[in-house]
């Protein structure tokens, strides 16, 4: 690498180039990622109203104290927790099963089935939520089908009116939208398992159940953990579906997830400080899970050799 040219050593030349190439991104992140998060910390210690002209008042940790005492915040936290748990557990398990099933089909079916399960993900979130609003309408398909299966004609299950049903409805939409996405991630994980393991197991006379239990599951475990954490983080960040539901008249309280609460506190009630404090809480929760994700994706894969 010692190489002399008129511009000095090549290493130096490359280093300057490197900085120039990285500079726009670095500058951008400083301004639109690091500064905002620091600003959020700072704003969370203020009592501030967007519209008022008075200078904001410094109140220390009072916003946090307020949050942890307010019922509204805890209800939001509960709504987020219920949504997250209700979403990521079925997502992580059902998509694994689907991936395993699809993987056992022949090649053309594999492609077709993956595309079919993935297709809801290409609808925009809001468009999907609008479609589901009609499905969950009292006269909609959801009632018709459930009544047909349960043989209870004419009963309205109040998908959007009862508090637990609204939660359930939002979970269904999310599940429907992301099931194909995670199936594809699992599928990629499954295709990385060497076929020879299955051949060896077959020679030894292992049933397909045993094969699944003692080859597939241990080897796909890192993917399971990864998918679970990704799904969890995504569920915690949900906003659009809940927003559209509340806008079209569904009960707000059961689906007032933290992101929606931040938006409503800041834009409707105009308590910027309080909303920032909530943002910081959300930031830390997601930070923990992102850190876990990073840890997990770095760990070595299990090997049978």
């Amino acid at each position, binding site marked *: 690498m010692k190489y002399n040219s008129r511009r000095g050593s090549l290493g130096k030349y*490359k*280093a300057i*180039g*490197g900085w*120039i*190439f*990285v500079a*726009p*991104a*670095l500058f951008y*992140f400083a301004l*639109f990622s*690091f*500064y905002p*998060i620091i*600003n*959020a910390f700072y*704003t969370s210690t203020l009592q501030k109203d967007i519209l008022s002209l008075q200078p904001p008042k410094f109140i220390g940790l009072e916003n946090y104290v307020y949050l942890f005492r307010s019922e509204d915040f805890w209800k939001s936290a509960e709504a987020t927790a219920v949504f997250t748990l209700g979403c990521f557990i079925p997502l992580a398990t059902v998509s694994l099963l*689907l991936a395993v*099933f*699809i993987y*056992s089909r022949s*090649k053309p079916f594999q*492609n077709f089935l993956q595309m079919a*399960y993935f*297709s*809801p993900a*290409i*609808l*925009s*979130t*809001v*468009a999907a939520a*609008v*479609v589901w609003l*009609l*499905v969950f309408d009292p*006269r909609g*398909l959801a009632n*018709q089908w459930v009544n047909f299966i349960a043989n209870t004609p004419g009963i309205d299950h109040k998908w959007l009116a009862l508090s637990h049903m609204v939660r359930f409805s939002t979970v269904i939409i999310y599940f429907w939208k992301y099931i194909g996405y995670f199936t*594809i*991630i699992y599928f990629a994980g499954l295709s990385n398992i060497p*076929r020879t393991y*299955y051949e060896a197991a077959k020679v030894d006379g292992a*049933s*397909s159940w045993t094969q699944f239990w003692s080859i597939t599951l241990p080897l796909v475990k890192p993917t399971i953990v*990864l998918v679970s954490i*990704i799904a969890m983080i995504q569920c915690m*960040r949900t906003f*659009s579906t809940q*927003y*559209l539901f509340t*806008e079209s008249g569904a009960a707000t309280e059961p689906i007032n997830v933290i992101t929606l609460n931040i*938006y409503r506190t800041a834009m409707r009630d105009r308590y910027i400080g309080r909303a920032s404090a909530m*943002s910081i809480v*959300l*930031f830390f929760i*997601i*930070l923990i899970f992102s850190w876990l994700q990073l840890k997990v*994706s770095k760990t070595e894969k299990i090997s049978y050799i």
Partner: protein
Amino acid sequence: MNKIRMIQPTRKIGKKKQAYHGVGWRFSYPGNFLIWGILVVTMGLVLTPLAFMVVSSVMPYREVMRIPFRWIPTSFHWQNYWQAIRGNDGSFIYLRNILNSFFVASMVTLTTVFISAMAGYGLAKLPFRGRNLVFILIMATMMVPFEAIMIPLYLIVTKFGWQDSYIGLIIPLMVNAFGIFLMRQFLISFPDAVIDSARIEGASEFRIFWNIVLPNAIPAVVALGILTFRQQWDNLIWPLLITQSEEMKTIPLYIVRFNSEKYTNEGALMAVAMIASLPIIILFFSMARYFTGGLTISGMKD
């Protein structure tokens, strides 16, 4: 290495597998039929809302909400699409909102791809002191969810007076750390010899990037581009914060508005949803390989 291989069109991976097919892992016969049953039924359930959207977008609203629902429309009611575009008030604002969505999503995609490729190249191929620190800093921003910084971003953008403008819609979304990560991972295996020989020939660093590195990173560029475009097409929360006038709104906001208007009929609402989804559907069918290819590596990104 593993990650880079996954970005390649899935077809390639499939071919390798096909050679092994038949000796691999199969279910026994009764189990096999059961699994077909489960797959077909769940696929039907997954596709039902999509079919509902397509079918009822050409139905008069009485038929959309009919009990029991009839899957075959008695007549094609194309007026729904006309009403979707015209709007309930006849303002044709949807067209403007569609253009806004196209413009904002394309601009964000362009800047994301370009700046990510640049930074990815710098981080992968041009060693400089502090490079690892820079990389870690950029990766750290991946842990900051947009929802947590949207309020400060809103304050910044209003301070600059950019609310309700294209620049306000575009700027805070211009790059994301994931894109840089993706480009770096892709470029790290690019042969140094090619770059060095170009350098000896006297090509400038930017020329090397533009004429040699970028054309060879097309799979990553396309995957990142599609991912970003789709994400921005879908974006509700930022336009919701930043726009006030109807002229500046994007498609998701129009759907919210159309949905809450009193005189909206359900058929037209489905037509609105169809129009909103159409560009991504077209993109999906023309570049499905890249869609899923990008997904498998994207893992950590919405």
